[in-house]
């Protein structure tokens, strides 16, 4: 037999017992040709375009899932940032566009649609401002729409006016979805160096330089890496790195074959393969568990940043060797509410917000799915965003903030979101004020790292 039985059983084991899956197949659709000054025409154009391009997305991914026997968990759509598409609209409230996206997503059967977004790293246009101000209402009246705002890049610096504004927007979004624990904030990401082709939510949008229609695939498998590392006998850190590299190579290869097949069948361009260890609340499917498998008593203790750096780098190296199309975020995600090991670490006091911030400087995203007290001032949220943006800007990497100031909740409480979003223990923030700093506004200039030409 061409393939050794042991290899076949290894693959079956990864899927059956270690939660290996294709986390998402995300179709990127350009809406640039949908613009119209009349918002009703714009909405009609958007609806028609999405439902035409994505009508067979779910059916096709289901067929490919059957063919290869690998579960594809989510089907999603990302669109051109709506601030660009609706720039010329003569209406100030853009929530009807969010409604349209929600309806289109519902009708084609996808799980989420991303792109209620604006790119404002250097400043805001009138259209950007309209979009940002429409976010709280839009996220409270829709189920599937995700929003992201890019407020910083290495090349442009940090737009502190936007950072300041986003503190208020996050708070208002939480308030408007207070009856569900502020779940609107779980669909809102603030970015530095946002990638144009990220298939993962809530931060997916279809970048300006992207083609008409593209398929981006997100592969996950913290459970597989966790078991592989745990099966090593008394390994050195070099052995662990090697093992993670080999495992991520295998996972990526599988994602590539599936992504290409879906793109071929839908007659779309194959964009990127994003190999990101995205944890789920399932036991063992945890990034914290991998770090603990390396020898840390509890995630968040001293040594965690180093262990995460090793993990993130090995994942990237394995992925880069396996596919020429690796892109998006590719690395390890550390969302608190979605990772049973992270939740446990917070609850037993080993993992703090400050440590999470340090960890984001060496992994692929940022402060993700973290609940903070509902009474946290908007300026403090803005300051947390500013810190995270600074890490991304200086290190030339993507960083993001997805915070939930849980309404009516305080440290010691827990917020339940359900499903893949999991549950979040409310974490304390620094009590001292950042208000004056945030109120200064303006722009933090691009760092010296930007001068590469």
């Amino acid at each position, binding site marked *: *037999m*061409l*393939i050794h*039985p042991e*290899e076949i059983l290894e693959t079956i084991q990864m899927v059956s017992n270690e939660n290996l899956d294709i986390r998402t197949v995300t179709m990127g659709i350009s809406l640039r040709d949908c613009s119209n000054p009349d918002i009703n025409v714009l909405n009609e154009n958007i609806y028609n375009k999405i439902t035409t391009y994505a009508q067979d997305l779910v059916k096709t991914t289901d067929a490919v899932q059957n063919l290869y026997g*690998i579960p594809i968990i989510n089907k999603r759509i990302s669109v051109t940032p709506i601030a660009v598409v609706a720039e010329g609209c003569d209406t100030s409230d853009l929530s009807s566009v969010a409604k349209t996206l929600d309806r289109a997503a519902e009708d084609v059967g996808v799980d989420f649609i991303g792109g209620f977004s604006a790119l404002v790293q250097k400043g805001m246009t009138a259209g950007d401002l309209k979009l940002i101000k429409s976010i709280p209402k839009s996220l409270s009246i829709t189920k599937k729409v995700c929003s992201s705002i890019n407020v910083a890049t290495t090349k442009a610096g940090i737009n502190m006016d936007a950072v300041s504004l986003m503190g208020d927007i996050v708070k208002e979004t939480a308030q408007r979805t207070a009856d569900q624990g502020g779940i609107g904030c779980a669909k809102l990401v603030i970015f530095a160096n946002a990638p144009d082709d990220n298939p993962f939510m809530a931060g997916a949008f279809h970048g300006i330089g992207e083609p008409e229609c593209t398929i981006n695939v997100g592969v996950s498998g913290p459970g597989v890496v966790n078991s592989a590392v745990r099966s090593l006998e008394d390994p050195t850190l070099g052995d662990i790195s090697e093992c993670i590299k080999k495992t991520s190579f295998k996972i990526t290869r599988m994602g590539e074959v599936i992504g290409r097949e879906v793109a071929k069948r839908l007659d779309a361009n194959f964009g990127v393969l994003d190999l990101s260890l995205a944890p789920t609340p399932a036991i063992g499917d945890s990034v914290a568990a991998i770090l603990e498998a390396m020898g840390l008593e509890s995630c968040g203790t001293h040594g965690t940043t180093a262990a995460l750096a090793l993990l993130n780098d090995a994942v990237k190296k394995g992925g880069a060797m396996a596919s020429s199309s690796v892109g998006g975020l590719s690395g390890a995600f550390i969302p608190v509410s979605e990772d049973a090991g992270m939740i446990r670490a917070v609850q037993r006091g080993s993992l703090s917000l400050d440590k999470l911030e340090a960890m984001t400087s060496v992994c692929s995203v940022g402060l993700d799915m973290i609940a903070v007290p509902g009474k946290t001032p908007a300026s403090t949220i803005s300051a947390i965003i500013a810190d995270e943006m600074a890490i991304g800007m200086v290190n030339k990497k993507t960083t993001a903030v997805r915070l939930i100031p849980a309404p009516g909740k305080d440290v010691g409480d827990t917020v339940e979101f359900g499903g893949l979003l999991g549950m979040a223990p409310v974490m304390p923030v620094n009590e001292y004020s950042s208000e004056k700093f945030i109120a200064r506004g303006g722009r933090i200039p691009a760092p010296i790292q930007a001068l590469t030409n």
Partner: protein
Amino acid sequence: MVPSRFIITVIGIDKVGIVAGVTKVMADFHVNIVDISQTIMEDLFTMIMLAEVKEGNFDLVAFQKAMSGEGGELGVEVKVQHEDTFRFMHRI
């Protein structure tokens, strides 16, 4: 056209009639066995087959359903997956 080589894995507690039951379904769907390997590891029956389908209008979903239905009756887990799943993961 559906690509035509599949890996079929049958895993479960050993008993009389597993091979007969599973291969009967394969014959009904005109699925040919190219290679077969079978072992018993710690009482766990493990059979792996490389199977080939020549017909262009082969109904994979119906075949998968019939195979897991048969597996259910025999008390074993049956999976039918395209060979590329394994070829891509384990071969460069």
